[in-house]
């Protein structure tokens, strides 16, 4: 009887150990899998030949604060990239704005979220693809780097979820849930900064700017230097933008244009120009007053 009791106790101890081990392993696995996730998501179930469909690159930070990421996206030959949109992206500053690389079927992107972000489903990028041929297709994330928002730019573990597609043979008359974004608003208001630094552009004046467009995304920037506020043409440019007027006597205008053509313009008038014109006006007023006084006296 006693022996039996000991056995039962041993059995119970064994069971407790197993439960403990299971819980411990559960926690350990849960902790170990607590990595940021970069995933590709499509918005439609079935894809037929000739369909256009949306794919989003989505970041789940798994409760970590992330402030930088870069990755390459590669897609199979039976897909054609039709559009890249960073409108409404969680990325605030692009180091390399996402674009099709010279080598075919590859998009590189690299960007920042100053201050960091915690999100379970932050859209980094929206892509529109067209299916060209039936069969297996895929879009893959390569060379992904995600950094934690800390003083050391520590690596965040990254889990990758690629997208495999089965493109059906039959051409469909219907577009399966293709989402077409309307963008009624121009880019958000933005600021421009005029500065110079001995380590950049040979200590010449340059502009810094960055605009956001939550609808279709920023397509380009245009810059105009109006010398003395009178002459100047629009030129396509990007930040940092070196100024050609070394005297800083030009009104500077920067225009952000979104992907549906709406524009937001910001203007910068150098203090020197205020001084110049203000001074001239004051001089002329003084001149006229003197003339009037002289005339009254005569």
């Amino acid at each position, binding site marked *: 009887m006693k022996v039996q009791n000991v056995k039962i106790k041993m059995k119970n101890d064994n069971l407790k150990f197993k439960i403990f081990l299971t819980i411990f392993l559960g926690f350990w696995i849960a902790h170990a899998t607590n990595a940021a996730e970069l995933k590709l998501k499509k918005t439609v179930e079935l894809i037929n030949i000739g369909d256009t469909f949306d794919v989003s690159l989505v970041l789940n930070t798994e409760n970590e604060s992330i*402030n930088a990421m870069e990755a390459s996206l590669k897609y199979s030959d039976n897909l054609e990239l039709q559009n890249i949109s960073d409108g409404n992206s969680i990325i605030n500053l692009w180091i390399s704005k996402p674009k099709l690389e010279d080598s075919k079927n590859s998009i590189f992107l690299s960007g920042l979220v100053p201050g960091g*972000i915690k999100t379970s489903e932050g859209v980094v990028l929206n892509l529109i693809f067209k299916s060209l041929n039936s069969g297996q297709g895929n879009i893959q994330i390569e060379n992904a780097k995600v950094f934690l928002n800390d003083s050391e730019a520590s690596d965040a573990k990254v889990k990758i979820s690629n997208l495999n597609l089965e493109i059906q043979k039959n051409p469909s008359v219907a577009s*399966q849930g293709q989402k077409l*974004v309307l963008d*009624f608003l121009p880019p958000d208001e933005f600021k421009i*900064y005029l500065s110079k630094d001995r*380590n950049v552009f040979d200590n010449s004046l340059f502009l810094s700017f*960055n605009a956001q467009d939550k609808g279709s995304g920023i397509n380009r920037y245009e810059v105009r230097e109006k010398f003395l506020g009178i002459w100047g043409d629009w030129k396509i440019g990007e930040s*940092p933008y070196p100024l050609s007027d070394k005297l800083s006597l030009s009104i500077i205008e920067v225009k952000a244009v979104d992907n549906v053509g709406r524009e937001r313009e910001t203007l910068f008038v150098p203090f020197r120009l205020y001084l110049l014109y203000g001074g001239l006006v004051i001089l002329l007023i003084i001149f006229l007053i003197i003339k009037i006084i002289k005339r009254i006296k005569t």
Partner: protein
Amino acid sequence: MRKYFKIVSFLFVFALIVSTFYFLPPTFDLTLFVGQIVNLFVTVSPGPTNASYRFFTPHDTLDPWDPWPPGTTLDLPENGYLNPMSFPPLPGQIFRLRMGIKATSDWPASNRKLKLQFGKLATGQTNCSTITTWNDLGNPGSGADWRGFDMPMTQLTNGATKTVNKLAGATVKGSYQESNPTPFNPLVLKNQIIEYDWSIQNNITNSSLDGGFYCFRMVNQNGSALNQYLQYPKIVLTKPFVNSTSSTIDKNFGGTINMSNTNGTGFTFVVPANYSPYSQSFDIHNFSVNDFLDQVGGQPSGKLGAHSYIYQMNAERNNVATSSFDQSLTMRIDYSDSEISSVDESTLRIYKHDGSNWNAQNTTLDTVNNRATVLVNSFSSFGLFGDAATSTPTPTPASTPTPAPASGGGGGGGGGGGSNVQTVPPASIVIKGKSYPNSTISFLRDAQLITKVKADKLGNFEINESNLSGGSYNFSLWALDELNLRSNTYSFFLNIIGNSTNNVLGILMPPTITLNKTTINPGENVRVYGSSVPDSFVIIEVRSEPMILSTKASIRGLYSEEISSAKLAKGIHTVKSKSKIGTGDESIFSSLLNFGIGVPAKKALIGDLNKDGKVNIIDFSILAFWYKKTGFPADFDLKQDGKIDLRDFSIMAFSWSG
């Protein structure tokens, strides 16, 4: 000669004055400027405030649960007004309006009755405070443009006390109202919000629909206005519809609704048997495609209109809106050859407008009989669109505010361009929180410094920003204390819907932190100090050997604690702190500092490359200039790994000040 000189001088001075005005910022608003000057001399006297509102679909309970609009996936947020994109009530339609009134002094019970009024804005005006003529909400069945609606349900009795408040911050339950005035109020203490619920019917005839703006407000029973209106519920009506039909379809048998158009086209709606547990009444309205697109801002990007009408549908039972059905319903649009003369017929799709976007539906095309068919299980507005025919120029039947297609997109309607900006109302955000007394809080939106605000003596701060278009925003805050120390950045991500007010409350700024020395000898102490929320607990964490210390911040928000090196090994150690307030809420950690015992501390690396005391877009530009290049100044390599890459940008982003 002298005469000519005078003329030339005059012209020159005139030109200079004109050009000086030309340099004024283009956004200079004289009315706003004068208003701000007037505000310097005027103080707003305290009194009840119309603080908040929300539109709901009609329900058979005292507490509406589905925000407007009915039967779609779109939910209009609190303080979001009804515009043509959010399906404003058509003639005869009913809605519920929850209104929050904030007391700025105590109201004893039975102190006042209130009533609801409406007014129409003059053409071109969008500001409800400019309305000079306000009308009382009409009684049920009256001829007023907006009138109360008597819901035929015993649980919905005029004047019944509500059971649940729906508006943010509302704590006192007012009454459900089908007519003016409300009953006497219950006790409402100063700063409490009492919430009322109104059942309202649109009684404007179709021919009078002109896309006009109507505003609502609550006033005292004698008609005197409340002292302040922070929010006016507003409805922007549609243009008149072309045709409408209404049918009740038996749940057991289903049925078909047909609508014939004057141009020979048609619309058919097939409802199967057992589509719902109850028989429903279906209302279908069709609008001119041009009128509709003018109001919602355009057709799907790069598409052309392929049918002259947009169809809007509702289903209801006993005036209670139905959101979804047990079975899919079939919708069919019959189009004509002339309607698609500019369109590639094979690309035709039925699109559903969800309140902000057009979404292509899974459309079956019968090009022989000119029919497009879809299955639907919730309602909204539907239209037919397609790609431009390749060989045809693009005379579009669609509206004027057509966004130009994205690069590479085919076709594209007329209009478009930069100046063609729709008047989609912007969203706003209100942020409140606690920082340190008299600290300065910098507020950043998407990495751009937007404003700086000063916290009061208790450390409370409030930030307001408006003019936000809808979308995902990354907001950041950091504080500068009276010791000139900078806090760590507190960031949050918010998906904002256009035309909404968003409240973010209870933010707790992380403490600032500094050390009296960064290198000490073994046996010496190092003092860690900074600012925190007044009276908060400050938890100080030291590593590499874990050591937790805690202290309490003074009423001025200052804290200080000695770290003894006796228990710490020789080498580099780090320290950070966080605040904990009485409610148990904790802030995020402060910046991480390091100090050396017997060895020099590591140099703190930040991204202020141009040494202007800020880390912002200029520093980003400088670093971007050197990205993946060689020959950069050594101190630009923030990671000190011999290259400028993403990691250096990440370190810069961590220290971002905007």
